[in-house]
């Protein structure tokens, strides 16, 4: 009887060969199941709107897992509850697509609740059709998030008791608290009168997709006579009398008129555009030369989080790059940096670099006492330790040269309190212990602050002050 409200919808295949079996025009749904009716409504609207060529239907896990048997459009079948995330991927890749996510209550409101809410909140261009039949149909009638209080299922055999199983979830109400959705409505397919209203909501949701306006959600109160052990009449009554009481029908939101279509950018795959994004025309380093005679210089820079030891290491690495040496830089990372101490390793080499992590160094730059204490013993004989003079007395290991540099003081005097790291750089440059030419440091500094002339000028001054200190004192 219900079937006659709708003729054969153009959006459904005439026969269902993907289903296989002897009855090519019969669906796999039980008689009296709400899924079949909703399929017809969606198929009808798809056909009428002429959107089949650009429609991607996402079949969920649940009784509608085989929705792709029926819908004459592009089809995907996906993991349990993940349809809105998959739909997001489709929609972002294919801006012109009409994306449909068809889901049951277990799929949408339980395992996939996060994906549901987040896709709605992003306002994805997806029409979500939500079949609320108060039960997990496919797996044999377990309790769903939407099961009514007192309703018996195989996992609440004495009826849903809110003290143990909570209350039915109201998805339309929940999603209505979000800004982004364009359209939210709850309908029913229990009988002819209800189907007529449902048809309008289904069409509206798809029109919104046709026009690229954003997220539309249609909750469909539906029958599952098989699991609820009802005949056709009893299931209609259950939906009309009990479900509707818990889940009032109606439109919760319709902003389709005032919403503008949302058009996403067109991807640029040209090499020129990518090159430009990375400024390849202006920012290039020369390639390293093979020069085994250079050997290796292993540097460790360490200090408090804000003392700029990571960028100090990076500028040394840039200088090495300019001097056409093989180079690697490796930072301590993560929470270590937060308030605590940070350090980095720089390896400069005349040939390909093995380990980028420095355990034993030739040069240690320590900006605070904990760093000095932690790494001083790992400096190789003949190596150098530069440490800030504010650290005070420290017993430098035998065979290692210790230099207390008034880096913070010099930085303050040059009116660049935060540039103690650059003072150390100037000292390094002047000492020549890195075996890099002096001008590589100056160039690397400029490269590091690229485009910020003021910073370049100040730091160059500080760099030279550090170098001058070496000339005056060592």
């Amino acid at each position, binding site marked *: 009887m219900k079937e006659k409200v709708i003729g054969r919808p153009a959006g459904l295949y005439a026969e269902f060969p993907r289903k296989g079996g002897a009855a090519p025009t019969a669906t796999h749904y039980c008689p009296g199941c709400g899924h079949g009716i909703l399929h017809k409504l969606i198929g009808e609207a798809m056909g009428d709107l002429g959107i089949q060529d650009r429609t991607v239907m996402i079949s969920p896990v649940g009784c509608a897992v085989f929705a792709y048997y029926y819908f004459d459009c592009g089809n995907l079948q996906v993991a349990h509850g993940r349809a809105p995330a998959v739909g997001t991927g489709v929609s972002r890749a294919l801006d012109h697509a009409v994306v449909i996510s068809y889901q049951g209550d277990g799929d949408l409101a339980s395992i996939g609740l996060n994906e549901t809410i987040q896709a709605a909140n992003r306002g994805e261009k997806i029409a979500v059709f939500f079949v609320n039949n108060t039960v997990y149909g496919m797996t044999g009638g377990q309790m769903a998030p939407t099961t009514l209080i007192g309703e018996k299922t195989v996992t609440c055999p004495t009826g849903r008791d809110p003290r143990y199983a909570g209350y039915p979830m109201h998805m339309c109400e929940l999603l209505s608290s979000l800004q982004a959705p364009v359209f939210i409505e709850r309908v029913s397919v229990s009988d002819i009168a209800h189907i007529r209203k449902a048809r309008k909501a289904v069409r509206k949701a798809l029109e919104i997709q046709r026009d690229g306006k954003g997220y539309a959600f249609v909750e469909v109160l539906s029958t599952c006579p098989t699991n609820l052990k009802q005949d056709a009449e009893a299931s209609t009554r259950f939906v009309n009398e009990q479900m509707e009481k818990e889940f009032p029908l109606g439109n919760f939101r319709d902003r389709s008129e005032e919403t503008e279509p949302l058009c996403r950018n067109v991807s640029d795959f040209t090499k020129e555009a990518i090159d430009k994004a990375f400024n390849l025309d202006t920012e290039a380093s020369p390639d390293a030369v093979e020069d085994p005679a250079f050997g290796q210089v292993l540097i460790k820079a360490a200090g408090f989080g804000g003392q700029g030891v990571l960028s100090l290491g990076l500028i040394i690495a840039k200088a090495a790059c300019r001097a056409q040496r093989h180079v690697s830089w490796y930072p301590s990372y993560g929470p270590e940096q937060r308030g605590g101490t940070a350090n980095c390793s720089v390896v400069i080499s005349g040939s390909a670099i093995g*380990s980028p992590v420095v355990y034993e160094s030739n040069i240690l730059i320590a900006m605070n006492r904990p760093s000095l204490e932690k790494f001083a013993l790992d400096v190789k004989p003949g190596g150098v330790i530069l440490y800030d003079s504010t650290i005070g007395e420290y017993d430098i290991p035998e065979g290692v040269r210790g230099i207390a540099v008034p880096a913070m003081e010099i930085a303050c005097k040059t009116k660049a309190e935060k540039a103690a790291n650059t003072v150390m750089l100037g000292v390094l440059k002047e000492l020549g212990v890195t075996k890099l030419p002096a001008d590589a440091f100056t160039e690397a500094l400029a490269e590091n602050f690229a485009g910020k002339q003021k910073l370049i000028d100040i730091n160059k001054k500080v760099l030279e002050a550090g170098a001058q200190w070496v000339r005056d004192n060592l």
Partner: protein
Amino acid sequence: MVTQLVKGNTAVVIGALYAGCDCYFGYPITPASEILHEASSYFPMLGRKFVQAESEEAAINMVYGGASAGHRVMTASSGPGISLKQEGISYLAGAELPCVIVDIMRAGPGLGNIGPEQADYNQIVKGGGHGNYKNIVLAPNSVQEMCDLTLKAFELSFKYRNPAVVLADGVLGQMVEPLKFPTSAVQPQIDTSWAVAATPQTRRNLITSIFLDFEQLEGFNNKLQEKYELIEQQEVAYEEYMMADADIVLVSYGISSRICRSAVEQARKKGIRVGLFRPVTLFPFPEKELFKLAQTGDRTFICVEMSNGQMREDVLLATRCMRPVELVNRLGGNLITFDQVMQKIEEVAKGGSI
């Protein structure tokens, strides 16, 4: 060719952009987050698509959506996030969808810490999700390869319609080295023979991993195995360093192989004949090559990896236990040290088995 000093995680994004990757879907996690950060600026800059997903599960399913559309798409994460992606990876493999997943490994199990480890080997190379599937797995050991192997991963994943994983670790993600930029950019094409691209041409296409019929599903599984065999025949990649006369063979991938390289050089100076065998593809694993090494000469193998010997098991299988296979490892976020490797080399060299 242009060179810049670049961070490993950034190099992944650079590789992806030149590979024609259209969409990036990700969720933050140390030490992979810079991939997300860089993608969030460079993808939109080029009109490409970026979504910070609500979870790794969502991200991998967005990848499923974008890949179904026939586009080149990717995600990246680290251990805990990769564990969450496993469901999605199984579906991607089951639906034969190409995509690239980057794993910047950190130390586990559980929340572990953010230090580097190589203990995702099993969950990436052996599957990790349900079913008889395999990922193509590429293991870079430099910033250059973080870029180049990401490009390669896209190429292979589309060639075989199979997920491809770039398996790196915290050090490779965080370190900076000079990168030679790619000299060409891929202009991606949608393969309309299978993609669901919202076009009249692709309207009849279906992406699914369901085969209700047992015989059919067995057939599909066998077809997958044939595909993996083909990949094994055609795509094995490895690097040999000073292997010609090596009595001791270090087998190591990723960052550990860099430390091994230094150890090989040092040991050679001491007159010990050591070589390095570095698998670049972990699936397909260079089994035949290792077997040949085990058959010829009285070599000792030393696996050097930051795990409890996960790759060593594959070396044992490949060499069919014909020769000793030792293990040098560190766990918990600690890097293997040069000294550790040297010590083992000297121990083996003194042991007189050589």
